[in-house]
């Protein structure tokens, strides 16, 4: 594992130096301002992007009210779930920086992400350094307030925690050339083992690292249909808490491993793109934290979720999600279903009513209902895809 980390670091360092040398020699485009000489013609203003050397600043606010009762995961009646401030800017001709700070009603402020992206590496490479959300599956990359849901699905919450999988380290990704002309992106990540994760132990020494790999492909099936598919793998020191509650405790592996697969299918009529669309996304996870050849049957809990989102009018979406997760303690499984109806007055605000039922055990189920409200201020961000 250390060998792989050193190889990745060597590739990154050599590529970065070459890119910097190449960028210094590359001609820089002239910037021009055209003034229109005639009196009655409109003036050609220079293309001003953003706030002239200041970062683009944005805020996404997420408020939530709930009704019903879930003794395993009780939600407050009303909550500022998150106010996330984004600061994003190009650093220099080679890199850009993205920083996201989050504030919560009932928690201390947190640094969600703060990373540097190297945009000019050769050979289809790109690198990130800093703290960032990991590309394990597709869902983990999405900030909590920007998902369609009021919660995180059972499986990623159980395996990675309520905040998902993120950490501080380095990531190198490569656009893989292939004879099929398909988009294929291979990513390798090395991070300090996460501080808060049900599956992984927080790093105590410098050698306790999380290693993550992902291969994702994309294909346009037709003008209206497309498909994203990926496989992911993560490995880090196992969290001793995985032992908690185990009746017939088997010795833990030194490392916990998570394997995942994800599939997203989309439909959109591009001639009426703002009125109708359909997305179906499915992710599956398998956690392996048992020693081979242990005295007890190994537990490799399997979980996943699948949801469909249908936009049936310009400002309306409806969706339903199913969840499944075998318990880490090895006793049965939990399942759930969530349905929602969402109204977006504009691209910059959202109102969603949601109902969720979770079956924790054959005689232990909970119903909760939510109202989710989000808003977005700042420069026009990219539409999610």
């Amino acid at each position, binding site marked *: 594992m250390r060998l792989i980390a050193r190889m990745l670091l060597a590739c990154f360092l050599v590529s970065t130096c070459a890119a910097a040398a190449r960028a210094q020699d590359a001609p820089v485009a002239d910037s021009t301002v055209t003034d229109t000489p005639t009196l009655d013609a409109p003036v050609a203003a220079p293309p001003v992007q953003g706030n002239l050397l200041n970062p683009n600043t944005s805020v996404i606010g997420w408020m939530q009210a709930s009704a019903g009762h879930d003794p395993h995961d009780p939600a407050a009646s009303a909550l500022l779930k998150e106010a996330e401030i984004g600061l994003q800017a190009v650093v220099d001709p080679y890199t850009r920086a993205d920083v996201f700070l989050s504030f919560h009603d009932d928690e201390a402020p947190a640094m969600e992400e703060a990373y540097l992206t190297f945009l000019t590496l050769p*050979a289809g490479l790109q690198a990130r350094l800093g703290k960032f959300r990991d590309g394990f599956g597709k869902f983990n990359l999405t900030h909590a307030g920007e998902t369609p849901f009021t919660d995180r699905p059972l499986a990623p919450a159980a395996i990675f925690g309520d905040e998902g999988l993120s950490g501080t380290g380095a990531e190198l990704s490569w656009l893989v050339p292939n004879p099929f002309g398909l988009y294929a992106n291979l990513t390798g990540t090395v991070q300090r083992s996460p501080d808060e994760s049900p599956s992984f132990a927080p790093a105590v020494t410098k050698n306790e690292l999380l290693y993550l790999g992902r291969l994702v492909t994309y294909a346009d099936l037709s003008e209206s249909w497309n498909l994203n598919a990926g496989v992911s793998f993560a490995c880090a020191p196992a969290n001793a808490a995985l032992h908690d509650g185990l009746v017939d405790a088997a010795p833990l592996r030194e490392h916990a491993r998570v394997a995942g697969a994800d599939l997203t299918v989309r439909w959109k009529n591009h001639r009426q793109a703002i009125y109708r669309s359909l997305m179906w996304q499915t992710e599956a996870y398998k956690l392996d934290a048992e020693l081979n050849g242990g005295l007890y049957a190994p537990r490799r809990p399997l979980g996943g979720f699948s949801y469909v989102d249908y936009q049936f009018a310009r400002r309306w979406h409806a969706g339903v999600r199913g969840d499944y997760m075998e318990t880490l303690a090895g006793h049965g499984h939990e399942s759930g279903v969530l349905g929602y109806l969402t109204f977006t007055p504009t691209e910059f605000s959202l109102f969603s009513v949601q109902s969720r039922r979770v079956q924790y055990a054959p005689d232990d189920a909970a119903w909760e209902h939510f109202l989710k409200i989000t808003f977005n201020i700042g420069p026009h961000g990219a539409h999610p895809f």
Partner: protein
Amino acid sequence: MHCIATMRRGLVAAALALALAPAAAHATLKVVTTTEDLAAIAREVGGPRVQVDFMAHGYEDPHHVDAKPSFVLKLAKADVFIQIGRELEVGWVPPLLNNARNAKIQPGGAGFLDVSSGVKILEVPTGSVDRSMGDVHPFGNPHFWLSSDNAVLMAQGIAAKFAQVDPAGAAAYKAGAAAFAQRVAAAKVRWLAQAKQIGLTGANIVTYHNSWPYFAREFGCNVVAYVEPRPGIPPSVAHTADLIAQMKAKHVRVLLVEPYFDQKLPRKIGTSAGVPVVMLPPSVDGSAGMKSYTDLVDRQLALIAKAMGGK
């Protein structure tokens, strides 16, 4: 251990080879544009020296294009990237450029061109701008290709960029832009005559979205109202009723709707106000028979003429 050492040397060697390999020489410039309008003009300017691809079809709303990973593959190989700018593509182009792994086409790079820097812009806001005004374009109206003067300026800007990246073809690109300008100038004579003949010049018109100020200025018509109360905001019942009354009071001659908007409500408005409704593509290849810039305007005027009865 020997295997690991060999593998390690191999990986470092491969990394060095990848990093230091010279770029392969290309016979043609690979150009990627955001819209088909840019692609059409780029082809006329570049001729056989360029290979042009685009991302947004002419029948798509250029504000709302999906940033598909397949576009990253096109951008990764591009020598030149051309966008309209003025935040027309702000909802989808930035993440594509960020993931393109192509230093040439990053903003400020040798192969990046924002054509809005060389054209005449209308409706640059003054004073404070915020989203109570709807989804406004804070740097001016970006639908500027619908002015033939701007189309010629765009062609000149594209020729200059091609010449910068491919100095050997500078004369050819300049000649291509000049030929384009001549074709547009010749066509503009008949366009203006046709606009007068069909009664578009001097007419009051209504449009669905504020996409047509350059077209209106070109042909001397007046946009008196919009179906959208504000950009990006669907019309309410009250606004629709008020709009119908305005259309009658101001003797509106035609209502223009882009093909990517809902056609049902505008047709109801048109019927109530007694005004013909035209589904009018604002971009090349927005409908059949619009393969070039001059085709686009020819077809637009033909559709308006048919709706207005040639009066």
